[in-house]
């Protein structure tokens, strides 16, 4: 065989490989979407089909009107938004103090933040749950939000990015009469937009997908977040009502996938830096 023929076969094989990888990554989403748009009897039907048959949006209407899905969605949004806001305040302030100010005890604080980073949530979950029971914070937004209102990883990440901003800028501003806080507001923050964006996206993803903590701290159906609520769908006898699960799965994936499509760069830097899950 001549060289050009060899090259063509290689290109074809590569193309096939590319397509297989894309199918592997995306097929589950396709089937999720398809199943959300057809009745239960078609989902469990034994003759396989790639398109909804018959097509209906009945599942979406049912799950939105007869179940708590809108409430779970709202809970997830409230928890994510408030947690992100709190993280932005708490993490930025402390990262600034850790990177820019001088005071006794600074070393200790650094050690504290770095060691908190390695504590897995799974290790603290038992005492944290007992604390919530004692405080009577079960089924409250406080209980859902406050334990995730800080992220040692984000503090560390912001601290690293503040390091890139020349200190000369601060000093010039202070000579001009700026206070420490206005230095943070007028110099540090405007120069760290990408790092802040990454932190927001990362926190949103963590909180939006979180299961273990919200499943422990909520007992009441109306207080559940999306992932926890969706996992509770079950019929008597243990079969799962896929016609409810699939539209809910679609609705809970849409916000995060849209966000990813628009803010890809932030997701990718955030996750490659913060690849260790909390």
């Amino acid at each position, binding site marked *: 065989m001549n060289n050009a023929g060899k090259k063509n076969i290689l290109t074809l094989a590569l193309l096939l490989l590319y397509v297989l990888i894309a199918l592997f990554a995306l097929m589950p989403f396709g089937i999720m979407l398809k199943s959300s748009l057809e009745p239960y009897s078609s989902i469990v039907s034994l003759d396989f089909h790639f398109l909804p048959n018959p097509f209906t949006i009945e599942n979406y209407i049912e799950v939105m009107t007869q179940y708590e899905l809108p409430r779970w969605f709202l809970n997830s949004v409230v928890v994510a938004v408030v947690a992100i806001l709190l993280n932005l305040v708490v993490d930025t302030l402390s990262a600034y103090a850790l990177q820019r100010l001088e005071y006794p005890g600074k070393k200790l604080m650094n050690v504290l933040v770095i060691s908190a980073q*390695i504590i897995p949530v799974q290790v603290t979950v038992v005492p944290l749950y007992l604390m919530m029971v004692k405080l009577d914070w079960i089924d409250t937004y406080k209980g859902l939000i406050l334990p995730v209102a800080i992220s040692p990883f984000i503090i560390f990440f912001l601290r690293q990015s503040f390091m890139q901003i020349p200190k000369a800028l601060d000093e010039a501003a202070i000579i001009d009469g700026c206070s420490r806080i206005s230095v943070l507001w007028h110099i540090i923050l405007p120069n760290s937009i990408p790092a802040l964006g990454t932190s927001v996206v990362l926190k949103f993803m963590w909180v939006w997908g979180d299961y273990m903590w919200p499943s422990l701290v909520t007992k009441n159906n109306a207080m559940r977040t999306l992932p926890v609520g969706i996992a509770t769908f079950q019929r008597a006898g243990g079969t*799962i009502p896929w016609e409810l699960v699939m539209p809910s799965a679609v609705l809970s994936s849409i916000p995060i996938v849209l966000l990813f499509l628009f803010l890809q760069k932030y997701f990718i830097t955030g996750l490659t830096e913060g690849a260790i899950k909390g």
Partner: protein
Amino acid sequence: MSKRKRQEMLSAYALLFPAILLLLVFMLIPMINSAWYSLFKWNLVGEKKFVGLSNFSFMFVKDASFKKALLNTCVYTIINMVSTLILALGCALLFQKQSRVNSIWRAIIFVPVVVPMTVMGMVWKMLYEPQYGAINQILSAIGISGPKWLFDSKVAMLAVILFNVWKEFGLYSIILVGGLQKIPAELYEAASVEGANWWQSFRRITMPMLRPIMFFTTTILLINSFKAFDHIWVMTNGGPGNSTTTLVTYIYTKVFDSVGLASAASVVLFVMVFLVTMVKNYIGRDGAIDE
């Protein structure tokens, strides 16, 4: 101390206060409590009874479900790590070159990473259904009769691992792409001038140059595998039997009936994560990783 210094100190403490408070209350104190509770026998409603280290000796000697959970966690970790690394490296090699098409492909493999773990776990549970699930239907179309996946205690572990590989290979792949792009192009040019083929330059240039980032990726994979829980919980509840029970599903099921055992298992998990982190940081500091 000058007035300015004093002011700086005070503002620093004020800025740090919310972080310190939250860190202490929601992380460090629970961490210490976890270790403390592991020394007690306690089921939430009854009396707390100090038992020393006997929760640990019970778990490691007598408790078959804990031993199974530990074994399963190791099996899960090894298979998950190896298969994720192979797939991630393969995709990284395919998509490493900076181009329009490749960036689309990198985005495609990243989509599973961003969606909620438990939600996709539910979707895969449907794909795994023995009769009407998409996977077995596709297999039977090409003449293979698929296993009963999550309902078969011999296959269930592989099924939850396969899901996790699907969910996360894109992330590790992108990390490895970052490593590949840092290898100087001159090295490959020199090799091709010398007449090296693809395999030779892979063995002699890519592999050694990639070692630091591979090491970093492996440690992250180890730590994340130790903590496997969400998808396993929604897909199998640790079953059938206890074929997919892991350390964290063990902790989760014990929260309500034995705080002592749950805490002791948490301590074991912490030690495992801590050791890997130490090795990672120690070798990282030695200059092997300049990330």
